[in-house]
């Protein structure tokens, strides 16, 4: 344990007012700890004051309303994975939750933490991008709702302001007649940080693509929607030529790099192939 504890403090926010007060003092929120504690253990967590947000009821739970499903920022991967409505309407979220770390991590890691930590390899962002989620940011001035596609701005940079907390993510259950596809390519079958991952949904009518949304993780500074591939595929019939061309266009939507876990070349080719796997499955 390399973190020097006297350089840190962790207090508890009992309610939102306290939380906003702490944010104003420059304290940083702490949810499930599965990212922050790893940094603390390695001795590389930025020193300072942190505050536990796990008691904030406003950030918790999964709520099913008439035309909306709200994932509280504190909803854990386990809660997401085991939720019947999410299993029915947003199966990709369930698939991605199942493959995060292992059960002990899923019991602690949160939706909000995954989004806020903004690792390029984060598991939820690609899913939220294709389900066209909205994200609620809360501050003492009230609630601010954004399209999730507008939230991530660059590597570890996002729309969130210093006085805001992620309150929830909103999903609309309107994808029942879509194909849903999720594929995470990692180094082993469990507890794998992804080398590439794809979340994709598509509505196909008589072999023609009526609607399609594709997002990749781990192959760009943030999770990305593949706009060029999507606009190419929209309205087309899925022939082998179309699929081949889609694979080529993918190179313009993602920028995979070499790093300690894999190579840019591998990530690119594996990404193209899982895209192909998805398209062949819906054609």
């Amino acid at each position: 344990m390399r973190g020097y504890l006297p350089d840190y403090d962790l207090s508890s926010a009992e309610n939102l007012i306290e939380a906003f007060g702490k944010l104003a003092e420059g304290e940083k929120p702490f949810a499930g700890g599965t990212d922050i504690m790893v940094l603390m253990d390695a001795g590389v967590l930025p020193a300072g004051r942190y505050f536990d947000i796990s008691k904030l009821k406003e950030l918790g739970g999964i709520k099913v309303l008439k035309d909306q499903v709200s994932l509280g920022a504190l909803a854990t991967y386990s809660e997401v994975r085991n939720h019947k409505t999410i299993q029915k309407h947003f199966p990709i979220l369930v698939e991605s939750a199942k493959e995060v770390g292992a059960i002990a991590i899923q019991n602690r890691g949160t939706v909000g933490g995954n989004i806020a930590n903004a690792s390029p390899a984060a598991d939820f962002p690609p899913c939220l991008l294709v389900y066209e989620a909205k994200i609620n940011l809360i501050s003492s001035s009230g609630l601010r709702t954004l399209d999730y596609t507008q939230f991530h701005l660059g590597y570890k940079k996002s729309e969130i302001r210093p006085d805001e907390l992620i309150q929830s993510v909103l999903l609309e259950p309107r994808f029942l007649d879509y194909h849903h596809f999720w594929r995470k390519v990692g180094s082993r079958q469990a507890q794998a940080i992804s080398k590439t991952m794809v979340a994709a949904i598509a509505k196909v009518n008589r072999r023609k693509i009526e609607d399609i949304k594709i997002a990749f993780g781990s192959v760009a500074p943030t999770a990305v929607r593949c706009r060029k591939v999507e606009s190419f595929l929209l309205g087309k019939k899925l022939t082998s030529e179309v699929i081949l061309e889609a694979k080529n266009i993918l190179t313009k939507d993602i920028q995979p790099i070499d790093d300690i876990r894999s190579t840019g070349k591998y990530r690119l080719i594996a990404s193209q192939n899982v895209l192909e796997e998805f398209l062949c499955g819906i054609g």
Partner: protein
Amino acid sequence: MTWVGKSALRKEGEKKLRGEAKYIDDISLPNMIYGITIRSPIARGLLKKIEYLPGIDWKSIIKVTAKDIPGKNYVALIEKDQPYLAEERINHPEEPVLLLAHPDKNLLEKARKLVKLHIEPLPAIYRLEDALNRTEIIWGQDNVLKSYAIDRGDIEKAFKSAAHVIEGTYFTGAQEQLYIETNGVIATASKKEGIAVWGSMQCPYYVHKALVPLFGLPPEKVRVIQMETGGGFGGKEEYPSVISGHAALLAWKSKRPVKMIYDRMEDMVATTKRHPSKTQIRTAFDKNYKLLGLDIDFTIDGGAYATLSSVVLSRGTLHASGPYFSPSIRIHSRAVATNTPPHGAFRGFGAPQSLFAIEKHMDLCANQLELDPVVLRKNNLVKHGQTLGCGQVVKENLKLETVLDKALIASDFHKKRKAFAKKNKSNPIKKGIGLAVFMHGAGFTGSGETFLASIAAVKATAEGKIQVLTSNTEIGQGTNTVFSQMAADALQIDFTDIEIAQPDTAFVPNSGPTVASRTTMIVGKLVELAALDLKQKLISAQLLKEKHTRKDFLSACKKYLKKLGELKGFSQYKAPPNVVWDDQKYQGDAYGTYAWATYIAETTTDTRTFETKVEKFWAFQEVGKVINPNLARGQIIGGVAQGIGYALYEDVVWKDGKMANNKMSNYIMPTTLDIPEIEVEFMELPYEFGGGGSKGIGELPLDGPAPAILNAMENALGLELNQIPMTPERLLNRLEQTRS
């Protein structure tokens, strides 16, 4: 009731299951403080200055450098080239330079970041090829730590007259032992009281041997005690000498007990790994596909210091020709130095490297000669009365071909090859099945065991137990249990009557290290003989008859103790007759006996993501008498799992000589979802000179998986693969290479 051959329950099992077993980090001594190691950030250079940056009360922190060493600054093992603490020269990243101790473990983490080592860089080499090419001389005259040459027959003639000549080159990477319990020790040290070290280790007497010259104290003043050890696999064979010395130096200076526990990042980046290797093989066949000549060039990367590389090289060399007979043999091998942390022992110890090469090569030859890989092997398997590559005549009742046939039948090998070939044509997921046929010599090589001259003892305790005293350690493999079984049978008493003494150099004789698959076979035999020696004392004292009951025996011990005080039995190693080894020619009877095996792997490779999974595995072997079926099966399955990691997942990523992926999230070992059903079968031909009739089996399972798996992948994909770990990235590169 006899115990050998039964699945007696693990002797220390209940403690472990209750969470009550005491590993070194579970205990504390009064007045104890903590120690950490400050290490070089670069691979090679001249140490100019140690700078202590402001931000901490340095006066309260104990510091130890090379200057504080009371005795000699080298780690006694084989050569004297490795310092405990660097003095002027740095030869590898993470080389220990400075030791710090303080009562506040957490404060030391702050101190760790406030030491700056000023090192003037020197050119460094990191690759085996650079060492061979002498890009830079970093060790001795030519970077060669050790070399061997085996020459027999007329190799040039063999190649000139051959009908077929096939060449191949094979590479294996480093592998981290990754015991789940990291290295750790507690040491106390003073001139008056001497040195005492408790710790996680395989060989207390190795640590003892290293601490004696470090402190310049007589041997009786050094005491080493093994605690419950959470895995070793060779990674705690020689390395504990280093951490023990460090903790003891801090204890010496601070005059307080010092606990030093490595965290995972430090353990992975700074301690030993399996030696990477490069093997070039040329085989000459006659027109009937029989070997005429086998020419092997084998190189291993030893890292910056000699440590155990000469012995790893030896074992790799002696196993390099596999279980095949060739009238002409040339095996030339060497261990070279590079500026990386020294490589060391890891289960298999050179044999997994060289056996990978020969077993890959046999499949290469089969493919090029358009022969079935089983047919080519059967054509060349060594027979009773023929010599192995090292010159050893196979005198034992060899059943290798039977083991091979059984494995082929159980796995449906040939049928599957046909079926997969068909299915693969139209499927992006390619299935393959491959095999490896091999052997592993148990015990120390050649005259090694004679040189060790191991001693074992048993003694009758006042509480009515028989205590086994050896320096062989329980590290999960079952030492405590099999020793109890063998001693109980020797004395015709109960498994529960036997107690195993904690390996503490103050109380147990030196029965040699817990390595080389020798513990059950060699030391088990010594335990049996020591027990018989104790029994003989009772018979000579006329307190016991040759034929006796358990009650008779225990009561005789009681009487003896009352009348004569101590009751102990001893034995010392004597080499089996007719084992002749020539150290000069490096040929002869390299090992007392071999275990013989055939491993078969069934794999699927997804050609979209290039990921390979082992779907099913068969591990069939002839191992002498199986002392404890449950434990033996556990050893094979555990070894196969490590072998699967070696073949597919465990890639050490090197950056400037340092392991860059030194975290468990980035160094990939298999999880429950990555290991298939592994079918294990034993054939038993009792070995006369092994305890209970056993042969060593601990390392055997590391030799087969990697070549079997790669042979399966080749079968599936129709291309040649010659490197492990064969990660998806490497497979992709290889596929592109073949296409272009």
